[in-house]
């Protein structure tokens, strides 16, 4: 193997430490973590090597590492770590740093991933919405039966969201592409499987959440993650469905509670809410070892909960007919919807794409594990 020039980056180390990986330097490379981890491949397993790369501040090594994403934060490693180095949390921090570093445009990475910037992040849709509504003269509580589209007409929403999502989507794809490139170049492993079958396998795994089943002390995560995941999937489907209704059968909102769309929507919302609550509880639960969640993680959990709660309130208050409350809540809900959907590439949710690519890559390079 070629000689590598190692240049320790103290600032990167400090950054990881400051962002939730404060135990990073405690690792003494015993490799207990890689052994107790059920999600790691046998060949060049993680997270031991990621820990030393991070200890030395070798950012390049980490940026091209698929393994950071193969980690499902089960925390078996953290439980058994003899030094309290909490590799699970450190890897989680690395993912956060990566999302931030790999963001396009990079300013968005900073705005969304840094907890202190959260309000600024929320200010973006706020300003945008106020602008749209103000300019079109909708910035008031409509009369009569509560119909949200009277306040924020669907075409406006479509226009705002479509363009924002479109831009974010392009940015996300670019980020993913960059990640794929650095991963495949940085690792330079021969392929034993094509990208298409590997990707399909990955998607099937995602659907089953089978990797989470490998988690040892933190096995509840599978259910929690599944609830959140399918909640989002359901809401995504609902959103598309609503659009389809709007343009094709011309069914307008509010949609009747008896409509299957509403069923899916409500079930998804419930799933997300339960998932979100469990997620928060799980973070606080004593699992027999110390694991700290970063503020980055906490903000994400809170955002989901707020999205969910405002969504449900939007529906309930509408049904209760309190217009003065309904429209402002709806407005706030839309802020969180925007935050969730448009900031997807920069928030914790973006891990989905990175993880999908990392797993696909590991399957292609024959470093997959038995699922």
């Amino acid at each position, binding site marked *: 193997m070629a000689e*590598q020039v190692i240049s320790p980056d103290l600032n990167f180390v400090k950054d990881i430490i400051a962002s939730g990986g404060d135990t990073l330097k405690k690792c*003494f490379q015993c490799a207990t973590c890689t052994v107790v981890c059920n999600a790691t491949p046998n060949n060049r397993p993680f997270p031991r090597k990621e820990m030393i790369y991070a200890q030395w501040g070798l950012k390049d090594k980490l940026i091209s590492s698929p393994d950071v994403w193969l980690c499902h934060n089960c925390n078996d490693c953290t439980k058994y770590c003899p030094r309290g180095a909490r590799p699970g949390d450190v890897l989680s921090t690395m993912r956060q740093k990566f999302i931030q570093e790999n963001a396009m445009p990079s300013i968005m990475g900073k705005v969304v991933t840094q907890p202190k910037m959260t309000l600024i992040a929320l200010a973006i849709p706020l300003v945008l919405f106020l602008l749209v509504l103000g300019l079109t003269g909708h910035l008031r509580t409509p009369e009569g039966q509560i119909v949200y589209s009277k306040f924020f007409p669907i075409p406006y929403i479509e226009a705002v969201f479509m363009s924002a999502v479109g831009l974010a989507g392009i940015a996300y794809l670019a980020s993913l592409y960059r990640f794929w490139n650095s991963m495949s170049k940085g690792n330079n492993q021969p392929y034993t499987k094509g990208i298409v079958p590997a990707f399909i396998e990955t998607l099937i795994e995602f659907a089953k959440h089978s990797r989470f089943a490998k988690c040892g002390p933190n096995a509840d995560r599978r259910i929690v993650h599944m609830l959140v995941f399918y909640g989002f999937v359901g809401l995504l489907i609902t959103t598309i469905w609503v659009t389809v209704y709007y343009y094709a059968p011309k069914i307008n909102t509010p949609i009747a509670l008896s409509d299957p769309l509403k069923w899916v929507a409500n079930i998804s919302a419930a799933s997300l809410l339960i998932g979100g609550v469990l997620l928060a509880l799980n973070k606080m639960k004593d699992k027999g070892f110390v694991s700290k969640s970063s503020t980055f993680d906490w903000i994400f959990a809170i955002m989901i909960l707020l999205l969910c709660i405002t969504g449900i309130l939007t529906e309930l208050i509408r049904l209760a007919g309190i217009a003065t409350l309904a429209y402002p809540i709806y407005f706030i809900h839309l802020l969180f919807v925007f935050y969730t959907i448009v900031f997807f590439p920069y928030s914790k949710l973006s891990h989905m794409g990175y993880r999908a690519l990392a797993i696909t890559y590991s399957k292609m390079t024959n470093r997959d594990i038995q699922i």
Partner: protein
Amino acid sequence: MEKKYGVYVCKGCGINDAVDVERLANVATKDMKMPSCKTHDFLCGPEGVQLIKDDIAKEGVNTIIIAACSPRVKYEEFDFPGTITERVNIREFVAWSQPPKTEDTQNLASDYLMMSITKAQKVDLPQPNILEGISSTILVIGGGITGMTAALDAANAGSKVVLIEKESQLGGFVNKLYKKIPTSEFKEPLIIDTDIDKMVKQVEGHSNIKVYKSAKLEKTDGQPGLYDVTISANGASETIKIGAIVMATGWKPYDASKIDHLGYGKFKNVVTNIEFEELAKKGNGKILRPSDGKEAKRVAFIQCAGQRDPNHLPYCSSMCCVTSLKQAGYVRQNPDAVAMIFYIDIRTPGRLELYYKEAQNNPGIMLTKADVKTVSEAGNGNLYVEAENTLLGEKIKAEADLVVLATGIVPTTKESQEYQDGLTQAASKGDEAKKAYLESTPKPEFILNLSYRQGPEIPSLEGAYGFADSNFICFQYETRRTGIYAAGAVHQPMNMMEAQQDAAGAAFKAIQCLDHISKGIAVHPRAWDETFPDPLLIRCTACKRCTEECPFGAIDEDEKGIPYYKVNRCRRCGTCMGACPERIVAFKDYSVDIIGSMVKAIDVPEEGFRIVAFTCENDAYPALDTAGINRKNIDPSVRFIPLRCLGGMNLVWVADALSRGIDGVLLLGCKFGENYQCHFVKGSELAEYRLGKVGETLNRLQLESERVQMLQVSISDSDKLPGLINEFVEKVKEIGPNPFKGF
């Protein structure tokens, strides 16, 4: 002393079942003409002991022969001060290892009884040899942390101490240190002041301590308790009386320029760990590198530089890992600086692990396992460290502003030991070679300058790489020069804390040695022994074997080559007794004649075999006892005779035995060679060496050499030993009876 004998035979513990005790008593009274022989069912019980005590009080019995259990047990019961007491081991060696009531068993018991009575007849009560004018002053050589600790500890226990230091100030290596690690709680701050000045003050101000600085030990004459030590300091020489010596001369850093691939001497910014301390001290914590005085912000530490390496130091210096972790802390006093540590294994044993844990938890201290291959120039005075097998990748290259080599320690005794060993080797090739060696080899600085016939320093220990170490795990101060105890880094590789503990240990042994000498008893391991070698020098032929073979250098020679015993150096092993062809060395209870007479006391029948086994008291004898405890059968033709050490084995006994018709001779000694087990250094090895010469005797007697054999036995061999002995007996039986039987 006029001897009044009392023979007592115990019938307990199965002895009565195994032998006919009445017949045995008859052996004592009839064959050995003892005035009386009493038997008792339970001799070690209160009544039995009283029986003996009554005889002492009423009959004036003063020479007691007790045929019962092994002398290793019931030592309190059978302790009769002021008497000669001989224990005959007919329990473990007879009743417990032989079939009951056979003729062989009976003969075995009666031989043991006769041998012991014979011995008792020859033994005298010891009179301790207390020399006049014993000094109780302790000399500590070396004023570093070890020497100062030893001096203070001895002085605080009430001893007078003389401390000599070759430099102009006390403190040793600690003077060079910028900081040290905390002593007990390994929490922030991880680097603290050494406070060496306070200790120096304490030493210099202590009323029991006299300090000589810029001083050298010119000559050490005499023996423990009576050393005449000549100290030269500041141009003047002074001879003072010294009792015992603590050698705390410490270490020298390994010459880093010998480690070619690490660039020391080639590149200015490659320094040793000691030089790094000096840099840190000079910059008061700021690390200004030698080439350009620029502050070093990337410092690479290379562990095991020239250590754990067959081409350099083949040992670990025990302190460099912690030192580098500490020094990385110096680097990190600048928050923007980085310390990279390349190690093979991080060695922070015991609680030092907690220091590692704390020190490591620092953003700017980077560690990796690595085999460092080269240090090369990177321009601007910077350096590349290239390494393989790292945790970061198979081959890596890191740039550093400064490279610190964690070089190891070389004991100050190394050079002089090597010189002496070379001299011995040359001398063995003849006077010419010796002369050539003396002329061609530069004489190193000696430490002790002993005027001993065996040389001026503590002899080297195989596998100790020049350290003045003890060969024994259990006995860390079992020195080969009585009265001289090494401590600190000259003793073993160790850190500062360990050195201070070691210093107290060595200081104590020096004090204890003087206590023994003042009482006329031997120094460890025979610390109860009041006997001493008393050679009949009129018959000495000046063959010099005793002076050469004495493991402790206790015997000097006069101009005619006649040995001169320095009894305070002697440890009473009897090696000189074994060495002496004239058989003139004797102790009151241990002599060529006594053992020879025991051999002669064995009844050698015309039919049947007899084997004598000379047995090391410390290992083989307890192993045989334990075989008895486990009721292992041993061939009844074997008679065991314990020796203080097999080094006392005199060849005449072999000749005596064989010429009397004894069929075989077995020597049971301990393991020799590297990792030898003999507490008298070379006892069993010398016995083996002497056996090599027995061939002559055997040839003269026209006997097979296989009749004499030596076995190396460990104390834990009790399970195997009976089998080995029985095998030997079988071999002798195959050879056939000794033709001298009946002569």
